């Protein structure tokens, strides 16, 4: 939380006069333009202005100074951060207890304990402030001492260890042999006349629509094709494939429609213009 409002107080002439009247004016107020880092920081600055050992600080006087400071800030209608006001309330209570000693309620700390706690916190805060300064006056890397300006690349000898074992070698060879069998180029021991899609197309178109309605695809296969396929005849296989391809092409062109009632079932076709019963 920022102490900016307090800085405004310190810099405002009218308020500064108030502060002077409250005998609060010290070098710290004028010099410290950074503002305070919270109420403890302000308290510490005020305590330091008392110019006594922090262990012998007058808590009452300190409370007065702080309260006067806060009052001045409020008179100047400056918004104080909540923590400054909380501290003010606490100090006001501490001061009244210190001035009018009465036995504290059983569940409350004594005024002495409260004062001691505050004094401890101020001293601890002071110690940290000084410790920070102590760090900053040390020689600093890059400001007071430097590393080697020409670091040398440490050579790395990279040795590649190739991982392979007999198993992977044999698997690779097995893979190779399998592929030779599976994906061997098409070998034709004797010239074979293969059917083509073009031939199948003209064949189908010639006889298409001679019979009305749905017809089996098989009707358009050259004679003996199915038997040939069963025997593994390459020519028959090509006829079957070519006819099927041609039929798909005709369907794509919207010349015929196709039908298959179940997977692997017979395929039927009929011309689009034709009428007929469903098979």
């Amino acid at each position, binding site marked *: 939380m920022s102490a900016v409002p307090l800085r405004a107080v310190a810099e405002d002439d009218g308020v500064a006069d108030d502060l002077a009247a409250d005998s609060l004016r010290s070098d710290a107020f004028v010099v410290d333009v950074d503002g305070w880092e919270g109420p403890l*920081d302000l308290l510490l600055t005020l305590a330091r202005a008392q110019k006594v050992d922090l262990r012998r600080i007058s808590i009452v006087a300190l409370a007065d100074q702080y309260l006067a400071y806060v009052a001045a800030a409020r008179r100047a209608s400056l918004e104080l951060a909540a923590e400054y*006001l909380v501290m003010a309330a606490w100090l006001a209570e501490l001061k009244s207890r210190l001035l009018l000693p009465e036995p504290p309620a059983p569940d409350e700390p004594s005024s002495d304990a409260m004062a001691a706690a505050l004094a401890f916190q101020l001293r601890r805060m002071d110690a940290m402030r000084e410790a920070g300064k102590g760090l900053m006056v040390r020689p600093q890397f890059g400001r007071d001492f430097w590393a080697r300006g020409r670091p040398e690349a440490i050579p790395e000898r990279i040795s590649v260890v190739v991982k392979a074992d007999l198993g992977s070698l044999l698997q690779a060879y097995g893979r190779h042999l399998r592929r030779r069998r599976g994906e061997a180029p098409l070998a034709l021991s004797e010239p074979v006349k293969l059917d083509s899609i073009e031939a199948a197309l003209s064949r189908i178109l010639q006889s298409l629509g001679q019979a009305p309605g749905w017809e089996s695809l098989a009707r358009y296969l050259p004679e003996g094709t199915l038997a040939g396929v069963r025997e593994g005849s390459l020519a028959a296989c090509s006829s079957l494939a070519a006819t099927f391809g041609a039929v798909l092409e005709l369907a794509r062109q919207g010349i015929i429609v196709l039908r298959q009632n179940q997977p692997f079932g017979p395929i039927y076709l009929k011309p689009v213009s034709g009428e007929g019963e469903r098979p």
Partner: protein
Amino acid sequence: MTRELTEDPALVRLVEAMLFASAEPLAERDLADRLPPGADIPALLTRLEREYAPRGVQLMRAGSGWSFVTAADLAPMLGRERRIEKKLSRAAIETLAVIAYHQPVTRGEIEEIRGVQLSKGTLDALFEYGWIEPRGRRETPGRPATWMTTDAFLRHFGLATTRELPNLDELRAAGLLDARPAIRVLQPDGGGAEEIPPAAEPLDPDGA
């Protein structure tokens, strides 16, 4: 056995060269990677440190890292360009001191010690410098992260370990590093500063 290995000039030279080659600090285990097993690395380092102590270059330890740096007393004569760093704010310097002297410490504890909430960028700035890092958690409700300084912090300020922090023993003896709870006002609900009630209330607790 370590005796003759330690005295082996070849090993001293090797450690010296390794540290010289690198601009970054090397940990003992980095050195061990390239030394014969059984080499007494701490002894080798101590010997080098001693040999270089009077020289213009010094062997410096910062936490687990060792590196050669120029002797700090030569800074004015070296006439090197000083790296201009963004000046740390007073809040950041004090926060750094609190972390260094009280570590491990939670954000809430830092705020308690300083009596004020940490503003947004303070820890970030210190973290960005590489001087602090969160390490572990406090086993209290909310399991807050605890902060510690790094080897880079030690190196920057020329400290071998955090035990070399200035005045550490005096502060500890005076009880000023005790984790004593803050005065009640700074933590009205026994919690962090975040729970501070609205300003109006505590000022006139007796009011309507």
